[in-house]
């Protein structure tokens, strides 16, 4: 589904991604792990068009999407969430999802302003769709709440709802369970599985190893912007270079 080929991303002298090759297969849940600063979020940023890669190529469904703008990539069917629950805090939960539905609103702007029957029909359809998504994500009872007033766990779910509302084929989740308690994590894992079962391929960046092992079909381990291992979760975590990468980090932490 997604092919990342020889992608380099450097910020000045810092090389965040170093000639990275990576594939995401149809309808899998891929986990991207690695120590801090390994380039996981940078990978998501490059794939979702947040910024273009310095070198290399990203192909999605056989199409070259390297260097496209974020909204163009979203239109092609890649959607993402952000590490910090990023929401329109001043809007209600439902309206946040409406913004996510925005792309599917095809009626021409003049027809929208004149409120023609076709435009109204389409608005009705999108409202129903937004409600459906909230229902699916278990947020429908909170639809009129201001997004900024939601507890952290719900905010995370809402930002995933908004990403789903764009109708993606590939969903990139950046640390979806950070800051959640055990119950919330279990609910989120279940939710992500159900999202995948609805036909959306998923890639997750996550620090919580237990979640990653539970959730993912396949893991890719990054270190210093390069892929150091790839395979089924349980195997991967026993590999020496992976343990080393993490232990190296631990030692550095101890010194600090």
């Amino acid at each position: 589904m997604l092919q990342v080929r020889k992608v380099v991303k450097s910020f000045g002298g810092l090389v965040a991604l170093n000639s990275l090759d990576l594939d995401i297969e149809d309808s899998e849940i891929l986990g991207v792990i690695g120590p801090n600063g390994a380039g996981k979020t940078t990978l998501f940023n490059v794939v979702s068009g947040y910024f273009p890669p310095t070198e290399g190529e990203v192909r999605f469904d056989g199409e070259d999407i390297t260097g496209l703008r974020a909204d163009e990539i979203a239109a092609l069917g890649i959607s993402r969430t952000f590490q910090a629950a990023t929401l329109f805090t001043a809007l209600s939960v439902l309206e946040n999802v409406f913004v996510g539905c925005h792309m599917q609103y095809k009626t021409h702007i003049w027809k929208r302003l004149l409120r023609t029957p076709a435009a109204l029909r389409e608005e009705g359809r999108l409202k129903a769709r937004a409600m459906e998504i909230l229902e699916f994500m278990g947020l429908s009872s909170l639809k009129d709440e201001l997004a900024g007033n939601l507890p952290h766990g719900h905010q995370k779910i809402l930002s995933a709802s908004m990403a789903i509302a764009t109708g993606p084929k590939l969903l990139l989740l950046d640390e979806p369970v950070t800051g959640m308690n055990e119950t919330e994590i279990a609910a989120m894992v279940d939710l992500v599985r159900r999202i995948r079962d609805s036909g959306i391929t998923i890639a997750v960046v996550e620090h919580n190893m237990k979640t990653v092992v539970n959730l993912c079909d396949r893991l890719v381990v990054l270190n210093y912007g390069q892929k150091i291992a790839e395979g089924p979760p349980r195997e991967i975590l026993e590999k020496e270079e992976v343990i080393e990468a993490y232990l190296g980090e631990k030692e550095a932490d101890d010194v600090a």
Partner: protein
Amino acid sequence: MEVAYSSKGGPRSRVKGKTIASALAVIALVLLPLVVKSPYYMHILIMSGLNAILAMTFITMLRTGLISLSIAAFWGIGAYASMLFVMRLKASFWLALPASIVVAGLIGLCIGYLFVRSAGFGFVMLSAVLGMLIIVVFGNLKFLGGYEGIESIPPPDQITIPLVARVEFASKAPYYYLMLVLLFVTIVILRAIYAAWTGRAWMAIGLNSRLAESLGVNVFRYRLWAFVISSAIAGMAGSFYAHYIGAVIPGSFDVFKTIYVHIFAILGGVDFAILGPIVGSVVMTFVPELLRITKVIEPIVTGVLVILIILFLPRGLLSLFGIQAMSTHVGRRIEKLGSFIKASLGFRAR
């Protein structure tokens, strides 16, 4: 727009109350010339209406996160375009008005295409440059009358409104009604856009443009739309202004006018897209006149007032009345700025 989908019982009655209040306000505004006879006060009323229109265009752009310093420039473009149509092409005012809307909109499209890409501070600077340069352009083009400007622009031709009256623009009252019509049209158009999905996209861009982009909103295109619509509306106000005053002088379209327009909107409350500009511009146009503040010290008084608003009333006058508005990023930013200044001045936080 948040009201329409709400399942609660409350909002519906609030909508009804709002409708009644606006109907009453429209009737009061229509009947006002029967009470206010003095041409002087009529003039102030007309000017506050024009200022309100301009302040609304400021808020339109502000919604998408663009702070424009070129509002007066497009106001001027509308005024000059209208002058050219009427005086050089001998067109009727009633043709020149829509024509200048189109001209201002098209120039807005071209300039916006170049400017809107750089959001944030870059856009502020670019629009400031346009706001300052436009006077030089007006002043140095011979056929626009140079820095002295052009006088004796004819008033709008008389028109016959079927079944009502023959309107001649000889006194202030017809101008007042024309201003009301323009104001009303502006409000209807802007309200429709705010309530539609376009308005939500604007809001989303203003709140968090990166997030909006990641959800597939074409930030550039929506900002460009906001810029074009604002420019066109400002051009409309400019066309009216040229024929109302009967002259166009480059100096009246300078960047300070834009800053005043910003102040009108902030005084009323930037969270109130329609009512804020109206309240702000009426207060800011009337109070200095009533207090007989001379032009010399007016900037000082205005400056002090702005600082006081930011410090003690960051959400604007309307927030005093407890009217509910969607809190926008700009409103919050002004509030933050106020508390920051307060803290640095040693005020205790409440």
